């Protein structure tokens, strides 16, 4: 167990290193002078000189990386030359919104997927399973950006439910009820996207698990169906579910970006797109770095949990 975690932790460090190099190098992949990229074409020579000093652009590239890395490690993501604000504070104000949407959506997705998958797995190819299967299959093929458009059209516009449409975002600190209202559609959309994946993965894994001999063994002990499902079948299958959740997280963030952008919710996604449109390079770099590291950290966390659930994994 400890060996396994150490190994994974080393891999994590490696991945974060690659991400940092990638994010750093992003600017050099782009055509043109980095200073021009960051400041735009209309930049004054004075501004460029300041930037050169700040980023150490006259030094060799590996030294530039270490200067940059040193800054990052001190929580300094640079200062946006477009909005003149610290990138770290931009990230800090946007990040909680993403976190809230994702946590809400995951609670909904798990709450819906686990009981439905169990119900389906109990009688595969029964009526309930077929209906759920067809529903999940259709939902699988509806991209989140279409789903959110449909939801906005029907709930905010046709039904006129206030506080759910575009630009309706209210921060959690202001009023938590209106905050929840304003995030309900995005969270629901992401929940649907996740539900489909979780339901399908958990259902097929449960069906396989329920055919295992140890389930028959559990039956022969005379314990209840409910207990067999939760204690004997769900736990081994939870590994597959957690694995799916871990893989899902990257795509979920991206889907969250689109949804935020459409509803103008000032999370990382919306901020990122605005920054892209304004060619605010440092903000883009900061967000990409933050999100990447976050995804990797979440994956690591899931690894840890999976390892707790299934003792077989760390042994092989």
């Amino acid at each position: 167990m400890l060996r396994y975690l150490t190994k994974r932790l080393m891999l994590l460090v490696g991945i974060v290193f690659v991400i940092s190099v990638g994010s750093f190098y992003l600017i050099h992949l782009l055509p043109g002078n980095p200073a021009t990229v960051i400041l735009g074409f209309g930049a004054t020579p004075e501004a460029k000189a300041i930037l050169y000093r700040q980023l150490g652009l006259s030094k060799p590239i590996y030294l530039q990386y270490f200067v940059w890395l040193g800054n990052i490690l001190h929580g300094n993501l640079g200062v946006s030359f477009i909005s003149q604000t610290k990138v770290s504070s931009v990230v800090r104000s946007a990040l909680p919104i993403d976190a809230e949407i994702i946590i809400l959506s995951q609670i909904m997705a798990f709450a819906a997927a686990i009981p439905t998958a169990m119900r389906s797995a109990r009688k595969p190819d029964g009526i309930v399973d077929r209906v759920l299967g067809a529903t999940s299959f259709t939902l699988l093929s509806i991209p989140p950006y279409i789903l959110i458009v449909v939801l906005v059209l029907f709930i905010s516009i046709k039904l006129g439910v206030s506080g759910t449409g575009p630009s309706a975002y209210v921060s959690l600190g202001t009023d938590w009820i209106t905050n929840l209202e304003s995030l309900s559609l995005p969270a629901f959309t992401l929940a649907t996207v996740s539900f489909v994946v979780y339901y399908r993965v958990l259902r097929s894994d449960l069906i396989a698990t329920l055919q295992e001999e140890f389930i028959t063994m559990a039956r022969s002990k005379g314990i209840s169906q409910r207990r067999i499902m939760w204690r004997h079948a769900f736990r081994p299958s939870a590994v597959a579910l957690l694995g799916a959740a871990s893989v899902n997280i990257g795509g979920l963030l991206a889907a969250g970006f689109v949804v935020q952008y459409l509803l103008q919710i000032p999370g990382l996604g919306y901020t990122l797109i605005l920054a892209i449109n304004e060619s605010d390079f440092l903000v883009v770099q900061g967000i990409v770095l933050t999100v990447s590291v976050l995804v990797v950290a979440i994956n690591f966390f899931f690894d840890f949990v999976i390892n707790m659930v299934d003792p077989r994994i760390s042994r092989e």
Partner: protein
Amino acid sequence: MSSFSLEEAALMVERPEKSEPLGLFFWICVFWIGLNVFGAIFANILPIQNPLNENFNAINVGPGLHHLFGTDDLGRDIFSRIVYGSRVSITVGMGAILIGFGVGAPLGMLAAYRRGRFDSYLTTIMYVLLAFPAIIATIAVLSFWTPRSLFKIIVVIGIASIPLVYRVIRTATLSVATKDYVIAAKVQGATDRRILMKELLPNIAPIAVSFFLIGVATVITLEGALAFLGLSVNPPTPSWGNMINEARTVLTQNVWLAFFPSLALCLFLIALNFIGDRIRSHFDVTEVKL
């Protein structure tokens, strides 16, 4: 001899036969994909209107005989825009996944067959790339790699899909490569090349085809998302994604504008996903979870 042996019967006692027939809906889906691909390839030759042709006498017309799906706010024919728009979606979807398979599949097969150091190094590298949130990286690169073009989108998504394809193909090959018949072929004196082509490939083909189709569907979805974020091909070139994106601002005035491209996209995705899913269950490849 009957084709059903007692040993198999004994197996069936424990696990019911899982191989499902392909069914009618499968063939409907195949037909639908074929139709879309046909339209995308021959859009210029087909008797449909010019998708860029603006007709100010027919703005925001509903579905009808003249304009099958109606027109948009510039009077352009939606039906023809959808047909032309499928070009972008299908090209990006197929192109990117072809890059992913072109690089990832041979590497995955080779790694699983060879094992040893080659496999462990390559798999570690791929694992690192896989942990890197590919979608975020795609957005980051595309946002600054201007001007955007179909080619660049395909290349970026294609490269991002390599580790995914690698992982799926490697896992699939691994489950086959340890079978005794592979050792048996080696013992017959078969070359590695022959083993890869004759013993391994036919057995991983169903998984590969299935994953290919589901991969195309995923990339098409992603292209749509990029279009929403303004990171895909630039208007006026139609794509399903940017058509929906443009239409959503006028949703209250003309629902058809968003409805038809959304429908085209969803139906295409359903067909792809269904075929992929059915191939997998038909060949009963449960070892690999896609």
